[in-house]
Protein backbone atom coordinates (compact mmCIF):
# COMPACT_ATOMS: atom_id res chain seq x y z
CA UNK A 1 0.00 0.00 0.00
CA UNK A 2 1.45 3.28 -0.99
CA UNK A 3 1.35 6.38 1.14
CA UNK A 4 -0.77 9.25 -0.10
CA UNK A 5 1.30 11.80 -1.97
CA UNK A 6 3.55 13.48 0.59
CA UNK A 7 2.54 16.90 -0.75
CA UNK A 8 -1.13 16.23 -0.11
CA UNK A 9 -0.35 14.95 3.36
CA UNK A 10 1.72 18.02 4.10
CA UNK A 11 -1.03 20.24 2.74
CA UNK A 12 -3.65 18.71 5.02
CA UNK A 13 -1.27 18.91 7.95
CA UNK A 14 -0.75 22.56 7.14
CA UNK A 15 -4.49 23.10 6.94
CA UNK A 16 -5.01 21.51 10.31
CA UNK A 17 -2.17 23.46 11.87
CA UNK A 18 -3.46 26.67 10.35
CA UNK A 19 -7.03 25.96 11.45
CA UNK A 20 -6.06 25.16 15.01
CA UNK A 21 -3.70 28.11 15.15
CA UNK A 22 -6.49 30.36 13.92
CA UNK A 23 -8.77 28.95 16.58
CA UNK A 24 -6.19 29.65 19.23
CA UNK A 25 -5.82 33.23 18.09
CA UNK A 26 -9.61 33.64 17.84
CA UNK A 27 -9.83 32.60 21.47
CA UNK A 28 -6.78 34.33 22.90
CA UNK A 29 -7.12 37.76 21.27
CA UNK A 30 -10.64 38.46 22.58
CA UNK A 31 -9.68 37.03 25.96
CA UNK A 32 -6.74 39.41 26.23
CA UNK A 33 -8.88 42.29 25.02
CA UNK A 34 -11.45 41.34 27.64
CA UNK A 35 -8.83 41.55 30.35
CA UNK A 36 -7.96 45.15 29.50
CA UNK A 37 -10.24 47.23 31.72
CA UNK A 38 -12.68 49.40 29.80
CA UNK A 39 -12.67 53.19 30.13
CA UNK A 40 -15.09 54.61 32.61
CA UNK A 41 -13.83 52.57 35.48
CA UNK A 42 -15.67 50.05 37.48
CA UNK A 43 -19.17 48.73 37.65
CA UNK A 44 -21.85 51.16 38.67
CA UNK A 45 -23.18 50.12 41.99
CA UNK A 46 -25.98 51.23 44.20
CA UNK A 47 -23.54 52.62 46.65
CA UNK A 48 -21.55 55.71 45.77
CA UNK A 49 -18.84 57.64 47.54
CA UNK A 50 -19.22 61.30 46.80
CA UNK A 51 -16.28 63.12 45.25
CA UNK A 52 -16.11 65.67 48.07
CA UNK A 53 -15.75 65.36 51.82
CA UNK A 54 -18.59 65.86 54.24
CA UNK A 55 -16.77 68.85 55.71
CA UNK A 56 -16.52 70.53 52.33
CA UNK A 57 -20.28 70.83 51.98
CA UNK A 58 -21.43 74.06 53.62
CA UNK A 59 -24.34 73.98 56.04
CA UNK A 60 -27.71 74.81 54.53
CA UNK A 61 -26.61 73.91 51.02
CA UNK A 62 -27.11 71.16 48.51
CA UNK A 63 -25.24 69.63 45.61
CA UNK A 64 -26.15 67.36 42.71
CA UNK A 65 -24.14 64.16 42.23
CA UNK A 66 -24.38 61.08 40.06
CA UNK A 67 -25.80 58.03 41.77
CA UNK A 68 -25.55 54.99 39.55
CA UNK A 69 -26.71 56.53 36.30
CA UNK A 70 -29.19 58.93 37.84
CA UNK A 71 -28.98 62.37 39.38
CA UNK A 72 -29.17 62.69 43.14
CA UNK A 73 -29.15 65.57 45.56
CA UNK A 74 -27.11 65.72 48.77
CA UNK A 75 -28.17 68.34 51.30
CA UNK A 76 -26.47 69.50 54.45
CA UNK A 77 -29.12 70.99 56.71
CA UNK A 78 -28.58 74.13 58.74
CA UNK A 79 -28.04 71.84 61.69
CA UNK A 80 -25.23 70.02 59.91
CA UNK A 81 -27.05 66.79 59.12
CA UNK A 82 -26.39 65.27 55.70
CA UNK A 83 -29.27 63.84 53.70
CA UNK A 84 -29.52 62.51 50.19
CA UNK A 85 -32.45 62.10 47.80
CA UNK A 86 -33.15 61.22 44.24
CA UNK A 87 -33.00 64.48 42.33
CA UNK A 88 -35.66 63.46 39.84
CA UNK A 89 -38.85 65.40 40.48
CA UNK A 90 -41.79 63.04 40.81
CA UNK A 91 -43.92 65.34 38.63
CA UNK A 92 -42.19 65.41 35.24
CA UNK A 93 -38.67 64.27 36.20
CA UNK A 94 -36.93 67.63 36.09
CA UNK A 95 -33.84 67.88 38.29
CA UNK A 96 -34.56 69.49 41.65
CA UNK A 97 -32.36 71.86 43.62
CA UNK A 98 -31.93 72.93 47.21
CA UNK A 99 -33.35 76.36 48.07
CA UNK A 100 -31.40 77.63 51.10
CA UNK A 101 -33.68 80.58 51.77
CA UNK A 102 -36.74 78.40 52.17
CA UNK A 103 -34.76 75.43 53.53
CA UNK A 104 -36.65 73.19 51.19
CA UNK A 105 -36.06 71.40 47.93
CA UNK A 106 -37.43 73.12 44.85
CA UNK A 107 -38.23 71.88 41.41
CA UNK A 108 -37.89 74.82 39.11
CA UNK A 109 -39.98 73.48 36.28
CA UNK A 110 -43.39 73.98 37.86
CA UNK A 111 -42.47 75.21 41.34
CA UNK A 112 -42.85 71.92 43.14
CA UNK A 113 -41.58 71.95 46.70
CA UNK A 114 -40.31 69.11 48.91
CA UNK A 115 -39.39 69.32 52.55
CA UNK A 116 -36.18 67.96 54.01
CA UNK A 117 -37.66 64.51 54.48
CA UNK A 118 -38.31 64.40 50.75
CA UNK A 119 -42.05 64.72 51.19
CA UNK A 120 -43.86 66.69 48.50
CA UNK A 121 -45.36 69.70 50.27
CA UNK A 122 -46.45 72.13 47.55
CA UNK A 123 -47.06 72.33 43.84
CA UNK A 124 -47.67 69.57 41.34
CA UNK A 125 -45.36 66.73 42.49
CA UNK A 126 -47.60 63.80 43.39
CA UNK A 127 -45.11 61.73 45.40
CA UNK A 128 -42.17 62.30 47.72
CA UNK A 129 -38.58 62.09 46.53
CA UNK A 130 -36.90 58.78 47.12
CA UNK A 131 -34.62 59.14 50.15
CA UNK A 132 -31.22 57.45 50.21
CA UNK A 133 -29.17 56.19 53.13
CA UNK A 134 -26.21 58.36 54.02
CA UNK A 135 -23.21 57.09 55.94
CA UNK A 136 -20.10 58.99 56.88
CA UNK A 137 -16.81 57.19 56.79
CA UNK A 138 -13.65 58.67 58.18
CA UNK A 139 -11.02 59.09 55.52
CA UNK A 140 -7.87 57.21 56.38
CA UNK A 141 -5.22 59.43 57.90
CA UNK A 142 -7.37 62.53 58.10
CA UNK A 143 -10.12 64.22 60.06
CA UNK A 144 -12.39 64.39 57.04
CA UNK A 145 -15.23 62.04 56.24
CA UNK A 146 -16.35 60.49 53.00
CA UNK A 147 -20.03 60.66 52.28
CA UNK A 148 -21.27 57.23 51.26
CA UNK A 149 -24.74 57.18 49.73
CA UNK A 150 -26.58 53.94 49.14
CA UNK A 151 -30.05 52.82 48.34
CA UNK A 152 -32.27 52.22 51.36
Amino acid at each position, binding site marked *: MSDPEPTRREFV*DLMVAGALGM*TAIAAIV*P*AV*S*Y*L*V*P*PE*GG*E*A*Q*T*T*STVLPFAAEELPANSGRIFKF*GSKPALVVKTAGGEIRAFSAQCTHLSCIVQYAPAERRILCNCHSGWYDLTGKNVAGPPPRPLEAYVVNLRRRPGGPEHDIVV*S*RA
Partner: protein
Amino acid sequence: MTSSSPAPESPRSPLQRFLDERLGLASLRALLEHKTVPEHRHAFWYVWGGMVLFLFLVQVATGILLLLYYRPGAGEAYESVQFIVTRVRWGWLVRSLHSISANLLMLALLVHLASVFFLRAYRRPRELTWVTGVGLFFVFITFGFSGYLLPWNQLAFFATSVGTEVPRAIPWVGPFLVKLIRGGPDVTGATLSRFYGLHVAILPATTTLLLGAHLYLVQRHGMSVPRDVEEKGPPMPFYPNFLLRDMIGWFVALGVLVTIIVLAPTAPMGALFPFDALFDPKHLLELGTKADPFASAPEGIKPEWSFLFMYQTLKLLPAKLAGVDGETLGVLGFGAGAAVLLLVPFLDRGASGLPPNAFSRVGGAVVVALGLVLAGLGTWSMHVLGHPLGVAGGLVAAAWIVVSVLLDGRRAGRRAGPSLLFPSLGWLAVAFIVVMTVIGRIS
Protein backbone atom coordinates in the same frame (compact mmCIF):
# COMPACT_ATOMS: atom_id res chain seq x y z
CA MET B 1 3.02 14.26 11.80
CA THR B 2 4.44 10.82 12.23
CA SER B 3 2.73 7.52 11.55
CA SER B 4 0.49 6.47 14.40
CA SER B 5 1.01 2.71 14.24
CA PRO B 6 2.98 1.35 17.15
CA ALA B 7 6.58 1.99 16.23
CA PRO B 8 9.94 2.54 17.83
CA GLU B 9 10.14 5.86 19.60
CA SER B 10 10.42 8.73 17.21
CA PRO B 11 13.32 11.18 17.45
CA ARG B 12 12.58 13.80 20.08
CA SER B 13 13.73 17.36 20.40
CA PRO B 14 16.06 18.45 23.22
CA LEU B 15 13.09 20.11 24.90
CA GLN B 16 11.08 16.91 24.82
CA ARG B 17 14.02 14.99 26.26
CA PHE B 18 14.43 17.59 29.01
CA LEU B 19 10.79 17.43 30.04
CA ASP B 20 10.69 13.70 29.72
CA GLU B 21 13.56 13.18 32.08
CA ARG B 22 12.02 15.38 34.75
CA LEU B 23 8.31 14.81 34.33
CA GLY B 24 8.32 11.26 33.11
CA LEU B 25 6.32 12.11 30.03
CA ALA B 26 7.24 8.79 28.53
CA SER B 27 4.35 7.06 30.24
CA LEU B 28 1.96 9.73 28.99
CA ARG B 29 3.22 9.34 25.47
CA ALA B 30 2.92 5.58 25.80
CA LEU B 31 -0.69 5.93 26.95
CA LEU B 32 -1.50 8.24 24.14
CA GLU B 33 0.08 5.97 21.59
CA HIS B 34 -1.46 2.82 22.95
CA LYS B 35 -4.90 3.99 23.93
CA THR B 36 -7.48 2.52 21.59
CA VAL B 37 -11.16 2.91 21.06
CA PRO B 38 -13.24 -0.07 19.97
CA GLU B 39 -15.25 0.10 16.78
CA HIS B 40 -18.79 -1.22 16.74
CA ARG B 41 -22.26 -0.07 15.96
CA HIS B 42 -22.62 1.80 19.26
CA ALA B 43 -19.23 3.46 19.03
CA PHE B 44 -20.83 6.82 18.27
CA TRP B 45 -21.70 7.24 21.95
CA TYR B 46 -18.06 7.28 22.93
CA VAL B 47 -17.68 10.91 21.88
CA TRP B 48 -20.06 12.22 24.51
CA GLY B 49 -17.74 11.92 27.46
CA GLY B 50 -15.18 14.03 25.63
CA MET B 51 -17.90 16.47 24.68
CA VAL B 52 -18.76 16.95 28.35
CA LEU B 53 -15.11 17.50 29.11
CA PHE B 54 -14.76 20.04 26.33
CA LEU B 55 -17.81 22.01 27.38
CA PHE B 56 -16.62 21.89 30.96
CA LEU B 57 -13.30 23.39 29.91
CA VAL B 58 -15.21 26.14 28.11
CA GLN B 59 -17.02 26.76 31.38
CA VAL B 60 -13.77 26.90 33.31
CA ALA B 61 -12.15 29.34 30.89
CA THR B 62 -15.15 31.66 30.60
CA GLY B 63 -15.82 31.30 34.31
CA ILE B 64 -12.33 32.44 35.20
CA LEU B 65 -12.66 35.43 32.89
CA LEU B 66 -16.01 36.35 34.41
CA LEU B 67 -14.53 36.00 37.87
CA LEU B 68 -12.18 38.89 37.11
CA TYR B 69 -15.04 41.37 36.83
CA TYR B 70 -17.88 39.82 38.80
CA ARG B 71 -18.59 41.11 42.27
CA PRO B 72 -20.52 38.89 44.66
CA GLY B 73 -22.81 40.74 47.02
CA ALA B 74 -26.44 41.78 46.73
CA GLY B 75 -25.49 45.41 46.20
CA GLU B 76 -23.08 44.85 43.36
CA ALA B 77 -23.65 41.53 41.64
CA TYR B 78 -26.29 42.63 39.17
CA GLU B 79 -24.47 45.82 38.28
CA SER B 80 -21.20 43.98 37.77
CA VAL B 81 -22.83 41.56 35.34
CA GLN B 82 -24.45 44.49 33.57
CA PHE B 83 -21.02 46.07 33.39
CA ILE B 84 -19.49 42.95 31.90
CA VAL B 85 -22.20 42.67 29.31
CA THR B 86 -22.27 46.33 28.29
CA ARG B 87 -18.86 47.80 28.88
CA VAL B 88 -16.18 45.12 28.92
CA ARG B 89 -14.79 44.28 25.50
CA TRP B 90 -16.14 40.91 24.41
CA GLY B 91 -17.86 40.72 27.77
CA TRP B 92 -21.14 39.89 26.07
CA LEU B 93 -19.46 36.92 24.42
CA VAL B 94 -17.77 35.58 27.55
CA ARG B 95 -20.94 35.81 29.58
CA SER B 96 -23.17 34.37 26.87
CA LEU B 97 -20.74 31.51 26.29
CA HIS B 98 -20.77 30.71 29.97
CA SER B 99 -24.54 30.84 30.18
CA ILE B 100 -25.41 28.88 27.04
CA SER B 101 -22.56 26.40 27.35
CA ALA B 102 -23.83 25.54 30.82
CA ASN B 103 -27.04 24.35 29.26
CA LEU B 104 -25.36 22.46 26.45
CA LEU B 105 -23.15 20.89 29.08
CA MET B 106 -26.22 19.63 30.93
CA LEU B 107 -27.60 18.19 27.70
CA ALA B 108 -24.33 16.49 26.84
CA LEU B 109 -24.11 15.20 30.38
CA LEU B 110 -27.54 13.63 30.14
CA VAL B 111 -26.68 12.02 26.82
CA HIS B 112 -23.43 10.66 28.26
CA LEU B 113 -25.19 9.35 31.35
CA ALA B 114 -27.96 7.74 29.35
CA SER B 115 -25.63 6.14 26.82
CA VAL B 116 -23.37 4.72 29.54
CA PHE B 117 -26.39 3.45 31.41
CA PHE B 118 -28.16 1.82 28.52
CA LEU B 119 -24.96 0.33 27.13
CA ARG B 120 -24.23 -0.93 30.64
CA ALA B 121 -20.71 0.38 30.59
CA TYR B 122 -20.90 0.45 34.38
CA ARG B 123 -20.35 -3.28 34.64
CA ARG B 124 -17.37 -4.73 36.40
CA PRO B 125 -14.64 -3.52 36.63
CA ARG B 126 -15.97 -0.03 35.92
CA GLU B 127 -18.26 0.36 38.93
CA LEU B 128 -16.18 3.14 40.46
CA THR B 129 -16.02 4.95 37.16
CA TRP B 130 -19.79 5.00 37.25
CA VAL B 131 -19.91 6.12 40.88
CA THR B 132 -17.50 9.00 40.27
CA GLY B 133 -19.47 9.84 37.18
CA VAL B 134 -22.77 10.06 39.06
CA GLY B 135 -20.98 12.11 41.69
CA LEU B 136 -19.88 14.47 38.94
CA PHE B 137 -23.46 14.57 37.69
CA PHE B 138 -24.66 15.79 41.07
CA VAL B 139 -21.78 18.26 41.20
CA PHE B 140 -22.72 19.71 37.82
CA ILE B 141 -26.36 20.03 38.82
CA THR B 142 -25.19 22.01 41.81
CA PHE B 143 -22.91 24.09 39.57
CA GLY B 144 -25.93 24.99 37.49
CA PHE B 145 -28.16 25.76 40.41
CA SER B 146 -25.60 27.89 42.22
CA GLY B 147 -24.48 29.72 39.10
CA TYR B 148 -28.01 30.61 38.15
CA LEU B 149 -28.36 32.87 41.18
CA LEU B 150 -25.15 34.82 40.64
CA PRO B 151 -26.50 37.56 38.33
CA TRP B 152 -28.93 38.39 41.15
CA ASN B 153 -31.83 39.30 38.90
CA GLN B 154 -35.53 38.85 39.58
CA LEU B 155 -35.81 35.61 37.66
CA ALA B 156 -32.87 34.00 39.42
CA PHE B 157 -33.86 35.27 42.81
CA PHE B 158 -37.35 33.88 42.71
CA ALA B 159 -36.38 30.68 40.94
CA THR B 160 -33.84 30.11 43.73
CA SER B 161 -36.44 30.89 46.40
CA VAL B 162 -38.76 28.33 44.87
CA GLY B 163 -36.01 25.78 44.36
CA THR B 164 -34.48 26.02 47.84
CA GLU B 165 -37.93 25.59 49.33
CA VAL B 166 -38.03 21.99 48.08
CA PRO B 167 -35.73 20.38 50.70
CA ARG B 168 -38.04 21.62 53.42
CA ALA B 169 -40.22 18.63 52.71
CA ILE B 170 -37.51 16.22 53.82
CA PRO B 171 -38.55 14.80 57.16
CA TRP B 172 -36.67 15.97 60.26
CA VAL B 173 -33.70 17.65 58.61
CA GLY B 174 -35.62 19.52 55.92
CA PRO B 175 -35.97 22.97 57.55
CA PHE B 176 -32.41 22.85 58.82
CA LEU B 177 -31.12 21.96 55.36
CA VAL B 178 -33.03 24.85 53.85
CA LYS B 179 -31.48 27.23 56.33
CA LEU B 180 -28.06 25.77 55.65
CA ILE B 181 -28.42 26.12 51.90
CA ARG B 182 -29.81 29.63 52.08
CA GLY B 183 -27.52 30.93 54.77
CA GLY B 184 -30.60 32.08 56.63
CA PRO B 185 -34.35 31.68 56.62
CA ASP B 186 -34.78 33.42 53.27
CA VAL B 187 -32.82 33.94 50.10
CA THR B 188 -30.65 36.99 50.75
CA GLY B 189 -27.17 38.30 50.09
CA ALA B 190 -25.99 35.56 52.43
CA THR B 191 -27.33 33.01 49.99
CA LEU B 192 -25.47 34.74 47.21
CA SER B 193 -22.21 34.54 49.15
CA ARG B 194 -22.74 30.91 49.86
CA PHE B 195 -23.62 30.04 46.29
CA TYR B 196 -20.66 32.02 45.03
CA GLY B 197 -18.30 30.13 47.33
CA LEU B 198 -19.83 26.87 46.14
CA HIS B 199 -19.64 27.83 42.51
CA VAL B 200 -16.06 29.11 42.31
CA ALA B 201 -14.28 27.18 45.07
CA ILE B 202 -15.98 24.18 46.63
CA LEU B 203 -17.43 22.67 43.50
CA PRO B 204 -14.34 23.22 41.33
CA ALA B 205 -12.21 21.53 44.01
CA THR B 206 -14.67 18.65 44.19
CA THR B 207 -14.73 18.42 40.44
CA THR B 208 -10.96 18.28 40.26
CA LEU B 209 -10.92 15.30 42.57
CA LEU B 210 -13.85 13.47 41.03
CA LEU B 211 -12.91 14.26 37.47
CA GLY B 212 -9.33 13.27 38.09
CA ALA B 213 -10.47 9.97 39.50
CA HIS B 214 -12.99 9.49 36.72
CA LEU B 215 -10.50 10.17 33.93
CA TYR B 216 -7.85 8.02 35.54
CA LEU B 217 -10.26 5.15 35.84
CA VAL B 218 -11.37 5.57 32.25
CA GLN B 219 -7.79 5.43 31.05
CA ARG B 220 -7.05 2.48 33.28
CA HIS B 221 -9.93 0.35 32.15
CA GLY B 222 -10.23 1.63 28.62
CA MET B 223 -13.48 1.91 26.71
CA SER B 224 -16.16 -0.63 27.56
CA VAL B 225 -17.65 -2.66 24.76
CA PRO B 226 -21.26 -3.69 25.29
CA ARG B 227 -21.80 -7.40 25.64
CA ASP B 228 -23.17 -9.24 22.65
CA VAL B 229 -21.96 -6.56 20.29
CA GLU B 230 -19.72 -7.44 17.41
CA GLU B 231 -16.61 -5.41 16.96
CA LYS B 232 -16.17 -4.31 13.40
CA GLY B 233 -12.44 -4.66 13.27
CA PRO B 234 -9.42 -3.80 15.33
CA PRO B 235 -9.83 -1.00 17.84
CA MET B 236 -9.07 2.44 16.56
CA PRO B 237 -6.10 4.32 17.95
CA PHE B 238 -7.22 7.11 20.18
CA TYR B 239 -4.53 9.37 18.84
CA PRO B 240 -5.03 10.66 16.24
CA ASN B 241 -8.06 8.83 14.82
CA PHE B 242 -10.54 9.05 17.65
CA LEU B 243 -9.22 12.36 18.89
CA LEU B 244 -9.89 13.89 15.50
CA ARG B 245 -13.46 12.65 15.69
CA ASP B 246 -13.73 14.14 19.17
CA MET B 247 -12.37 17.45 17.93
CA ILE B 248 -14.76 17.63 15.03
CA GLY B 249 -17.56 17.16 17.54
CA TRP B 250 -16.15 19.89 19.75
CA PHE B 251 -15.97 22.41 16.95
CA VAL B 252 -19.50 21.55 15.82
CA ALA B 253 -20.62 22.14 19.39
CA LEU B 254 -18.77 25.47 19.34
CA GLY B 255 -20.61 26.39 16.16
CA VAL B 256 -23.94 25.56 17.78
CA LEU B 257 -22.96 27.61 20.82
CA VAL B 258 -22.06 30.78 18.96
CA THR B 259 -25.14 30.51 16.76
CA ILE B 260 -27.42 30.31 19.76
CA ILE B 261 -25.60 33.17 21.47
CA VAL B 262 -25.97 35.62 18.62
CA LEU B 263 -29.37 34.61 17.32
CA ALA B 264 -31.13 33.92 20.63
CA PRO B 265 -31.97 37.48 21.71
CA THR B 266 -34.02 38.08 18.60
CA ALA B 267 -37.32 36.51 17.72
CA PRO B 268 -36.31 34.15 14.89
CA MET B 269 -34.55 31.95 17.41
CA GLY B 270 -37.69 30.41 18.74
CA ALA B 271 -39.05 29.75 15.31
CA LEU B 272 -35.95 28.12 13.94
CA PHE B 273 -34.46 26.16 16.74
CA PRO B 274 -36.06 23.59 18.95
CA PHE B 275 -33.93 24.83 21.81
CA ASP B 276 -36.58 27.30 22.63
CA ALA B 277 -38.93 24.49 23.45
CA LEU B 278 -36.47 23.08 25.92
CA PHE B 279 -34.73 26.04 27.40
CA ASP B 280 -35.27 29.68 26.71
CA PRO B 281 -32.07 31.25 25.39
CA LYS B 282 -33.57 34.71 25.37
CA HIS B 283 -34.30 34.48 29.05
CA LEU B 284 -30.90 33.06 29.76
CA LEU B 285 -29.21 36.00 28.14
CA GLU B 286 -31.47 38.87 29.13
CA LEU B 287 -30.37 40.39 32.37
CA GLY B 288 -33.86 41.50 33.32
CA THR B 289 -34.27 43.61 36.43
CA LYS B 290 -32.31 43.50 39.63
CA ALA B 291 -33.60 41.23 42.37
CA ASP B 292 -36.02 42.93 44.71
CA PRO B 293 -37.02 40.68 47.59
CA PHE B 294 -39.98 42.91 48.37
CA ALA B 295 -41.49 42.85 44.92
CA SER B 296 -44.04 40.13 44.30
CA ALA B 297 -42.78 37.06 42.51
CA PRO B 298 -43.03 37.30 38.72
CA GLU B 299 -46.01 35.49 37.31
CA GLY B 300 -45.44 31.91 36.31
CA ILE B 301 -42.08 31.71 37.99
CA LYS B 302 -40.49 28.33 37.63
CA PRO B 303 -36.98 26.90 37.77
CA GLU B 304 -34.92 26.52 34.64
CA TRP B 305 -35.45 23.49 32.46
CA SER B 306 -33.07 21.06 34.15
CA PHE B 307 -35.02 21.28 37.39
CA LEU B 308 -38.38 21.61 35.76
CA PHE B 309 -39.33 17.94 36.03
CA MET B 310 -38.80 17.97 39.79
CA TYR B 311 -40.73 21.18 40.20
CA GLN B 312 -43.56 19.96 38.01
CA THR B 313 -43.76 16.62 39.84
CA LEU B 314 -43.98 18.34 43.18
CA LYS B 315 -46.63 20.64 41.81
CA LEU B 316 -48.71 17.73 40.56
CA LEU B 317 -48.53 15.69 43.74
CA PRO B 318 -51.59 16.20 45.86
CA ALA B 319 -51.13 17.84 49.23
CA LYS B 320 -51.64 14.61 51.08
CA LEU B 321 -51.26 11.11 49.81
CA ALA B 322 -52.13 8.21 52.06
CA GLY B 323 -51.79 10.46 55.03
CA VAL B 324 -48.28 11.61 54.20
CA ASP B 325 -47.38 15.07 52.98
CA GLY B 326 -47.32 14.94 49.18
CA GLU B 327 -44.21 17.04 48.88
CA THR B 328 -42.33 14.87 51.35
CA LEU B 329 -43.15 11.82 49.27
CA GLY B 330 -41.96 13.58 46.15
CA VAL B 331 -38.67 14.67 47.68
CA LEU B 332 -38.05 11.26 49.17
CA GLY B 333 -38.83 9.75 45.81
CA PHE B 334 -36.19 11.86 44.12
CA GLY B 335 -33.74 11.04 46.88
CA ALA B 336 -34.41 7.36 46.39
CA GLY B 337 -33.93 7.79 42.65
CA ALA B 338 -30.57 9.46 43.21
CA ALA B 339 -29.47 6.65 45.53
CA VAL B 340 -30.49 4.01 43.02
CA LEU B 341 -28.64 5.86 40.28
CA LEU B 342 -25.49 5.83 42.35
CA LEU B 343 -25.72 2.13 43.14
CA VAL B 344 -26.71 0.79 39.73
CA PRO B 345 -23.54 -1.23 39.12
CA PHE B 346 -23.95 -3.00 42.43
CA LEU B 347 -27.60 -3.72 41.84
CA ASP B 348 -27.32 -4.89 38.27
CA ARG B 349 -24.81 -7.65 38.85
CA GLY B 350 -26.20 -9.56 35.95
CA ALA B 351 -24.72 -7.00 33.63
CA SER B 352 -21.28 -7.95 34.83
CA GLY B 353 -22.14 -11.56 34.33
CA LEU B 354 -22.11 -12.11 38.06
CA PRO B 355 -24.66 -14.06 40.04
CA PRO B 356 -26.76 -11.96 42.39
CA ASN B 357 -25.57 -11.50 45.95
CA ALA B 358 -27.37 -10.48 49.09
CA PHE B 359 -26.95 -6.80 48.42
CA SER B 360 -28.16 -6.96 44.86
CA ARG B 361 -31.10 -9.16 45.79
CA VAL B 362 -32.23 -6.95 48.60
CA GLY B 363 -31.35 -3.86 46.66
CA GLY B 364 -33.10 -5.13 43.57
CA ALA B 365 -36.20 -5.98 45.55
CA VAL B 366 -36.12 -2.56 47.15
CA VAL B 367 -35.79 -0.94 43.74
CA VAL B 368 -38.67 -2.93 42.36
CA ALA B 369 -40.78 -2.19 45.40
CA LEU B 370 -39.83 1.46 45.18
CA GLY B 371 -40.66 1.52 41.50
CA LEU B 372 -44.03 -0.08 42.10
CA VAL B 373 -44.78 2.19 45.03
CA LEU B 374 -43.84 5.24 43.01
CA ALA B 375 -45.86 4.08 40.04
CA GLY B 376 -48.77 3.32 42.36
CA LEU B 377 -48.52 6.64 44.15
CA GLY B 378 -48.21 8.40 40.86
CA THR B 379 -51.30 6.63 39.55
CA TRP B 380 -53.20 7.42 42.70
CA SER B 381 -52.21 11.08 42.68
CA MET B 382 -53.20 11.38 39.03
CA HIS B 383 -56.52 9.82 39.95
CA VAL B 384 -56.98 12.24 42.83
CA LEU B 385 -56.16 15.17 40.55
CA GLY B 386 -58.42 13.90 37.83
CA HIS B 387 -55.86 13.33 35.06
CA PRO B 388 -56.97 10.16 33.31
CA LEU B 389 -53.94 10.22 31.01
CA GLY B 390 -51.67 10.35 34.02
CA VAL B 391 -53.52 7.43 35.57
CA ALA B 392 -53.02 5.43 32.41
CA GLY B 393 -49.34 6.34 32.37
CA GLY B 394 -48.89 5.25 35.96
CA LEU B 395 -50.57 1.94 35.32
CA VAL B 396 -48.45 1.33 32.25
CA ALA B 397 -45.33 2.07 34.25
CA ALA B 398 -46.31 -0.33 37.01
CA ALA B 399 -47.17 -2.98 34.46
CA TRP B 400 -43.86 -2.53 32.71
CA ILE B 401 -41.95 -3.02 35.93
CA VAL B 402 -43.86 -6.16 36.73
CA VAL B 403 -43.32 -7.54 33.23
CA SER B 404 -39.60 -6.83 33.40
CA VAL B 405 -39.30 -8.58 36.73
CA LEU B 406 -41.22 -11.59 35.43
CA LEU B 407 -39.14 -11.81 32.30
CA ASP B 408 -36.00 -11.53 34.38
CA GLY B 409 -37.24 -14.26 36.62
CA ARG B 410 -37.80 -16.55 33.64
CA ARG B 411 -34.41 -15.82 32.20
CA ALA B 412 -32.67 -16.17 35.52
CA GLY B 413 -33.66 -19.76 35.48
CA ARG B 414 -31.72 -20.32 32.27
CA ARG B 415 -28.57 -18.26 32.64
CA ALA B 416 -27.17 -15.28 34.48
CA GLY B 417 -27.69 -12.60 31.91
CA PRO B 418 -28.17 -8.92 32.01
CA SER B 419 -31.46 -8.10 33.65
CA LEU B 420 -34.17 -6.32 31.76
CA LEU B 421 -35.18 -4.47 34.85
CA PHE B 422 -32.58 -1.78 34.69
CA PRO B 423 -33.03 -0.67 31.13
CA SER B 424 -36.77 -0.77 31.72
CA LEU B 425 -36.46 1.41 34.77
CA GLY B 426 -34.12 3.61 32.82
CA TRP B 427 -36.60 4.11 30.01
CA LEU B 428 -39.36 4.76 32.51
CA ALA B 429 -37.25 7.37 34.22
CA VAL B 430 -36.38 9.00 30.90
CA ALA B 431 -40.03 9.04 29.81
CA PHE B 432 -41.08 10.44 33.17
CA ILE B 433 -38.49 13.19 33.13
CA VAL B 434 -39.23 14.17 29.54
CA VAL B 435 -42.99 14.24 30.09
CA MET B 436 -42.65 16.26 33.29
CA THR B 437 -40.26 18.70 31.68
CA VAL B 438 -42.55 19.24 28.72
CA ILE B 439 -45.57 19.71 30.97
CA GLY B 440 -43.57 22.11 33.09
CA ARG B 441 -42.56 24.02 30.01
CA ILE B 442 -45.98 24.38 28.47
CA SER B 443 -48.02 24.94 31.59
